[in-house]
């Protein structure tokens, strides 16, 4: 049996792995900006006392490796009654991790919306909710797009780390197949190409989107 026959036979598992990788990535990419926006909003507009703990959360997450965070959550969790299966722990970890970065990205975006744009809205008579929905959020989204696309790519790559806590995603599926067949190199190559394609596509979509949004940017 050649390596490629083995690869063929392992295909269903690899496809499952790819599916889980994409699921974890998309779910993480959806949840972490939402949580991050909550954090950014609370730090900017919330009561003063929330700033310090949230600052600590952001700095600790951004200052330590994702792998260490996942070990702490997955192996340490059960000691404090947080006994999660690998996939749940992975998604929780990815979200908490991504949210810290997104909160900083979005906070920067919120601050960068020119004050005058909000004042112009006040003068036209928009109320608080309308200003948030119609001015602040859209303008912020525009400003944070490049950094966010970057972060989506980071999240995709971090999903590979989840294989270490045995989440059966792509890396785990392929390396598992590899070690069973002593075809590690081929499998690692396949793996590299899968991720490379996904990150390249994401980058291109992001750049295309940016070009299309260019007309909204006043130089």
């Amino acid at each position, binding site marked *: 049996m050649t390596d490629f026959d083995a690869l063929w036979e392992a295909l269903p598992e690899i496809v499952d792995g790819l599916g889980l990788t994409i699921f974890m990535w998309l779910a993480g990419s959806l949840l972490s900006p939402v949580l991050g926006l909550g954090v950014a909003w609370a730090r900017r507009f919330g009561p003063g006392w929330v700033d310090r703990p949230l600052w600590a959360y952001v700095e600790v997450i951004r200052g330590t490796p994702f792998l260490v965070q996942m070990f702490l959550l997955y192996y340490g969790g059960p000691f404090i009654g947080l006994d999660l299966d690998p996939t749940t722990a992975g998604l929780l970890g990815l979200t908490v991790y991504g949210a810290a970065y997104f909160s900083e990205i979005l906070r920067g975006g919120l601050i960068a919306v*020119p004050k*005058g*744009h909000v*004042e*112009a*809205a*006040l*003068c*036209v*008579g*928009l*109320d608080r909710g*309308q200003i948030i929905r*119609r*001015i602040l959020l*859209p*303008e912020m989204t*525009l400003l944070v797009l490049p950094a966010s696309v970057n972060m989506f790519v980071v999240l995709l790559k971090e999903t590979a780390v989840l294989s270490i806590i045995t989440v059966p995603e792509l890396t785990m599926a392929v390396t598992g197949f590899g070690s069973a067949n002593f075809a590690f190199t081929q499998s690692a190559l396949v793996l590299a190409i899968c991720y490379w394609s996904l990150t390249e596509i994401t980058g291109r979509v992001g750049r295309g989107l940016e070009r299309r949004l*260019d*007309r*909204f*940017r*006043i*130089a």
Partner: protein
Amino acid sequence: MSGEIAITMRNLGKRYGAHEVLRGIDLDVRHGEVTCLIGPSGSGKSTLLRCVAFLEEHDSGIIRIGGAALGFDEGADGARVRLPVGEIARVRRNIGMVFQQFNLWPHMTALGNVAEGLRQVLRLPKREARERAMAHLGRVGLAEKADAYPSQLSGGQQQRVAIARALAMDPKIMLFDEPTSSLDPELTGEVLTVMRDLAAEGMTMLVVTHEIGFAAHVAQHVVFLDQARIALEGRAGEVFRKPWHPRLSQFLETYLDRGASVLLGG
């Protein structure tokens, strides 16, 4: 209507920390008149305008717009009371503001910018908002730019859209804070023309400007602000014809090369 008082300020005061930016300002702005506010940089002109728009909250004194107190009123016992948000919004509805930096919303077209208040605040149906917005764009000569985004417009065009946006809400009073100061010289003309037309139609305008020519020819009333106080005010002709006030003549001298020499020569 014309000649009645549109805005009254009595003993208006504003400070940032220890820094007093406005001190005991008493000023009346009449309906149908153009009032120009001139003065050196840092004298408090923008702050005064922003207080009238309630973008800054004054610390003392009272501002009345068409008789109604803005933001703060005196209670029965003479104490200062803050008015409810709804009341502030209602009084502010009388006012339109045009900023030095245009402040068009970059994610909306010219039409979208003008229609925003019509749709969201006045709750007009889409078609009616569109028609009215188009009419206002036409008024500033930009009907054909309705679908352009701010990034696709020149500075002068952006400022004219900003004027249309303010006019669309049908304000009784228009505030302008150095509307031409961030424009290239060849673009200031088109904005000043729109403002001149507006004045000719009888709009009440309070204008901060360094365009002394505009102040001299269009304004009925000129206010010279210096170091947080009104140093001098009066009919435009009087103020410019005999700038006896030492600070004013010093101030005007810096504008001699901007065409003010013509004025001073009579």
